[in-house]
Every structure is written in structure tokens, then in C-alpha cells.
């Protein structure tokens, strides 16, 4: 029999099953955060939902689990999928009925993306958000965005919107590669 890593499809199929021998009561809250750190953003699989800063609160008393999740954008189509993936990850650890709470306030900001998350975005080829979201200018000049591939600051914006609402489209004028920039919001 060929051994292989379980794919996300397997996880989806197994979603309703809770392992019979699981001992969720032994899990600490820290362990829950670690489990969540294995749940990747389906649209930017380089970073986890924790690194993205969309898990706002974990409330775990050894029996009941409530997780507050906030969407990145009002219309983010991955919101439901992310919530399902979180539930599945918790069930896989033996937690039967995790509650997901969708919270809108305070509104998500790219300032919540962790340092590690930013580094992973860069390694994945996405320029991480630069500067502080509160300083985003309405009609002003843009920050200089460094190319995540060659590091050059000789870049230009092609479009305010990229492959997803959270990204803008840039191009490097030195290595000539196009790249995504994770917008400050």
C-alpha cells in the first residue's frame, strides 16, 4: 500500500468523524492555538489562520470550545470555508461540538498579521503589508513596495486589486516578475 500524507480532501471526508480514542479534555488552551496554527488560509496557504490574525479568541474549559473568528473583508468568500476548516481541525482532535463565533468588531487589520506570517508571505512570493494600516492614504502617494523575489525597490503597481480582494498587483522593474502585494487595511 502506498503511504501518503493526508490531503485536505481526506480531512473534508473525515470531517464528521471524531476519533474514538481522542482525549480532548487533556488539551490545554495553548494546544488549541497550536492546532489552529495548522489550519491554513485556503486562499493564501502559506500562512495559518493564526498568523493571519483572524482568530480573535479561544475559550476552552476542557469541554466546551468557543472560537472567535473575524473575516478579513466583508465579502471574503473564504469566510465559511475557513470556519469549516477550523471546526474540522477541532473535531479531528476529539472536540465534538466547537462553536464558531463570527465577530466583526474590532475590524480586522493587516497590523494583526504576525511577524512570522509576514516572513512566510514573502517567502511565498507575496509582498507583506507595509506600514501601519491607520496611516493608509486616501488619495496620496503609495509606499515603496519591495519585490518579494529579488528584493528590489524598483517596482510599480499594476492594479489596486489582485487575485483576491486583499491583494494588489505589482511588477518588479528589475527582475521583471509580477507579484502580489498584501494590501494594508
Amino acid at each position, binding site marked *: 500500500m502506498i503511504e501518503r500524507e493526508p490531503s485536505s480532501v481526506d480531512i473534508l471526508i473525515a470531517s464528521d468523524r471524531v476519533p474514538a480514542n481522542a482525549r480532548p479534555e487533556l488539551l490545554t488552551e495553548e494546544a488549541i492555538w497550536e492546532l489552529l496554527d495548522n489550519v491554513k488560509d485556503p486562499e493564501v496557504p502559506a500562512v495559518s489562520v493564526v498568523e493571519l490574525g483572524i482568530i480573535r479568541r479561544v475559550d476552552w474549559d476542557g469541554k466546551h470550545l468557543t472560537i472567535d473568528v473575524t473575516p478579513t473583508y466583508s465579502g471574503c468568500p473564504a469566510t465559511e470555508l475557513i470556519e469549516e476548516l477550523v471546526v474540522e481541525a477541532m473535531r479531528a482532535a476529539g472536540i465534538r461540538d466547537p462553536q464558531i463565533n463570527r465577530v466583526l468588531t474590532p475590524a480586522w487589520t493587516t497590523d494583526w498579521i504576525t511577524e512570522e506570517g509576514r516572513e512566510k508571505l514573502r517567502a511565498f512570493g507575496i509582498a507583506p503589508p507595509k506600514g501601519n494600516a491607520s496611516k493608509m492614504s486616501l488619495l496620496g502617494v503609495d509606499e515603496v513596495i519591495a519585490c518579494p523575489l529579488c528584493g528590489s525597490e524598483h517596482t510599480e503597481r499594476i492594479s*489596486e486589486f489582485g487575485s483576491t480582494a486583499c491583494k494588489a498587483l505589482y511588477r518588479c522593474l528589475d527582475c521583471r516578475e509580477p507579484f502580489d502585494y498584501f494590501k494594508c487595511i
Partner: protein
Amino acid sequence: MTQQQALQEYLLRLADSDIILGQRLSELVGKAPALEEELASTNVALDLIGQARNWYEYAAELINDGRDADNLVFLRDAHEYRNLLMVEQPNEDYAVTIARQFFFDVWHYFTLKALVNASDERIATIAAKAVKEATYHLRRSSEWVKRMGDGTEESHRRMQDAFDILWRFTGELITPDEVDHAMFKAGIGPDPEQLKQDWLGMVREVAAQATVTPGAEDAWMYMGGKRGEHTEHLGHLLAVMQFLPRAYPDATTW
């Protein structure tokens, strides 16, 4: 009109303008003049549809007659829609698409900025998220107005034409009615006079940079969208948008 009724009306206006413009922009899938513009238009559409859902869900709770957000979107007819006439205007030339977006974005941005401080916490919460998105929408549309207006002779002509075609629908954005006044008095909506000055100020500023001439403030204006009196275009849009759930009412997945 009680304050509760005014609030429901106001929420439907916000939601309806978002969903109708979101639908208009979605028509550009596969048809936008450039791939980047298709991505941008549909991203903006996605933001607007997401915001609409937030407004509809709150409206549905207040209306409390068993209808949910989907129901409000797919099963109301044109006369029940409360969107601004501006957003139902067809895409036509891309300069028209952009000018429509710009006029709306300026209104949307200043409206949401005020709603962030609404005395109604749910409204403030939804607006705080939406205003960040609307800021990016306005950045993009204002840049395009400038680039086209101050571009070639041809692009300038088209942007000026777009301003001329759409100007008659701008009055509705900045002319308050009893609902707008009631919302301002309740500490929810923007100060109508301030909104008007902010809107005119930014539109004139960007128009000047784009070398296009906006219409006169006292020009004759089409109004009525906020009361359910629409241009002929809305019915056609709804026919497309509502076909599937009306034809297959029990469809839950598509």
C-alpha cells in the same frame, strides 16, 4: 414615519445600493477591457455584496417578518428596491462604468465615515469594516477618472461624456429626504449638509485634476430611487439577478 421604520428604510437603501452595484460590476466578468480591470471590478463587487449581506441581515432582524437576507434580495420587485438611481445605470462605455463608480465611491466613503460613529452599535460595526474597503474603491476609481480625463484626447472626451451622462443622477446622492434627516437626528446617519459639501468638494477636486468639468449644482436631477421609483434599467437587472431563485425556489446549492 417612526424611527424604527426610518432605520429599516435606511438599512435597505445602504444594502440595495451595494447589491445593485455589485451585480452591475459582476456583469463585467469576461467582458472588462483588461484582465486587471476585470479582477478589480469583481473584487469591488465582492466587497459590496459582502457589505450588503451585513446590512440585509440587520434589516431582516428589524423587519422581523420571516424574510431573510436572500429573500430580500431575490424576491422583491423593482418598486421595493431602495437603491440610488446611479448604481442601476448600465455599464456602457468603460468611462461611464468608472465615473459611476467614482460618484458612488465618494458618496459611499463619506457616508460610511459618518456611520462609523453611529449611535447604533451594529451599524457602527458594519461601517467600520466597510469604510476600509470603500477607501480602496475610491482610490482606484479616482485614479481612473484622472488617468482617463487627463489622458488622450479620446479618453478625455469619453470621461467628459460619462460625467455629462451621469451628472443628472448625482443629485440624489446629496439631497436628503425625511429618512436621511431622521437618521441624522438619531445620531446614526451623516449630517446631510456636511455630506453634500464633502461630496462636492472631492468630486470637484478630482475633476479638476482630471481636466473634466462636472455639471452644475443646480442642474435638473433625476430622483426617486430611495422611494422605489426607478429607471427602466433596474427591472432588467433584477430579471437576470433573480431568475434562478425565482425559477427554482428550493435550490439551495448552485
